[in-house]
């Protein structure tokens, strides 16, 4: 929006160096995530690290390849909103199952008494 064209100009023209720059950053992050997963043993934190790196990659793709940084804010809100709802969905389902574990019977559940 802030670029110098008039409002009739549709879309932002991304310079080539930026496209390639983003691409190389993505490749480097891919290498990084493979490396951390195979060489760093952080226990439960590995998954979070992997997710953080994946989110960084996703952000790069969304902002530059998908033009979000130059786009109408609404489109970005749509994407972020969608992710928020995914997190909501996952979060509550996870909370439920995790919370349920201690309530479980060991072994198969007993049959209900029938008369």
């Amino acid at each position, binding site marked *: 929006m802030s670029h110098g064209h008039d409002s009739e100009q*549709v879309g932002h023209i991304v310079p080539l160096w930026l496209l390639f720059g983003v691409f190389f950053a993505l*490749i480097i992050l891919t290498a990084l995530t493979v490396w951390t997963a195979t060489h760093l043993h952080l226990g439960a934190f590995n998954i979070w690290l992997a997710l953080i790196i*994946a989110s960084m990659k*996703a952000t790069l793709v969304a902002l530059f390849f998908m033009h979000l940084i130059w786009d109408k804010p*609404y*489109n970005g809100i749509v994407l972020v909103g969608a992710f928020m709802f995914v997190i909501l969905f996952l979060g509550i389902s996870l909370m439920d199952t995790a919370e349920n*574990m201690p309530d479980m*019977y060991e072994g198969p559940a*007993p049959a209900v008494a029938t008369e």
Partner: protein
Amino acid sequence: MGKKHSSDGAGHAEHPKWMQHHFDTPSQQFASSKMGMWLFLATEVLLFAGLFCAYAVYRANHMEMFVFGHQFLDVKWGAINTCVLLFSSLTAAWSVRAAQVGQKTLMIVLLFLTMCCGGGFMAIKYVEYSHKIHDGLLWGTQYKPTGHAAEVIHGEEAHAAGDLGGAHGRVDAGHTEAEQVAAIEAAHGAKAAGDAKAAGDAHTAGDAHAAGDGNATTAAPPAEAGAMHATELPADVLAIDAAERSATQPAAIGPRGLVPVAETDAAHAEAGGHHWEGPIPDNVHIFFGIYFGMTGLHGIHVLIGMIILGWLIYRALKNDFSPEYFTPVDLGVLYWHLVDLIWIFLFPLLYLIG
């Protein structure tokens, strides 16, 4: 407002043919289309959310399935495919730029390259899938490890028995109560030893049901439930006040959990080049189910994306696009990027576990 475009457009019409009558200006039409596409992408994200949810729930509760199962996936292929898709995203984004600045030939070449990358991705997936199919490492009832995978999973003798995954082959008559106890003890031993692979992970350790005890949690098919433990509950469960345990009567089929599988023998195995020590977890087929569900749905999206790219190339060859009008290219490429975006998450979640 609209004047500029109608004058430098085709030059003969009031407004160009791509302009629809219910919009006032080209930029209004462009912004509308783009917003529509973004909303559609949001629905795609939520479509995948279901599978991500299943992944998260099973992973959080049964990490061991994932740790064990993921060894049969090849990081090398996954990483190559990631790079292929990233490269295709680059060419796709570049093709939009080419469309904007009017480099028609370049745009077509780039779109074609993008499509080829999609083809390459699918080819690699084909190789991976056929390995899994060959080894019987499939989902649910189709999970029947054979060949090398079977040796890893079943050990020698089970190889002949064949079916591990079928719901009904589960509680092997040959396994007596005593054997199970022994297996459980063995498993406990493994846990005590603090094996990093099997139980060391915080998730797994917390989830003593499945990893350690092998004999896991609740749900068993009714017949087997009857045959095995009837109404006895483990002492520590009975010790909990009934009111605290659960608000409802337990059903014949337990609320949820894992079927106890006889295959809890502590195993030493070479799987996919990894050294596996400790009990083979139950229900590994769920991992493969999720793997196939996620990559399968994603693969379908890649195929759809390729069709869209093909259609864009066709229209570009027909000279439908110009620096004033390239909306379909922009939208099609957005879709392609989303497919990439999802793979960016799938790769570490499936291939880079533990």
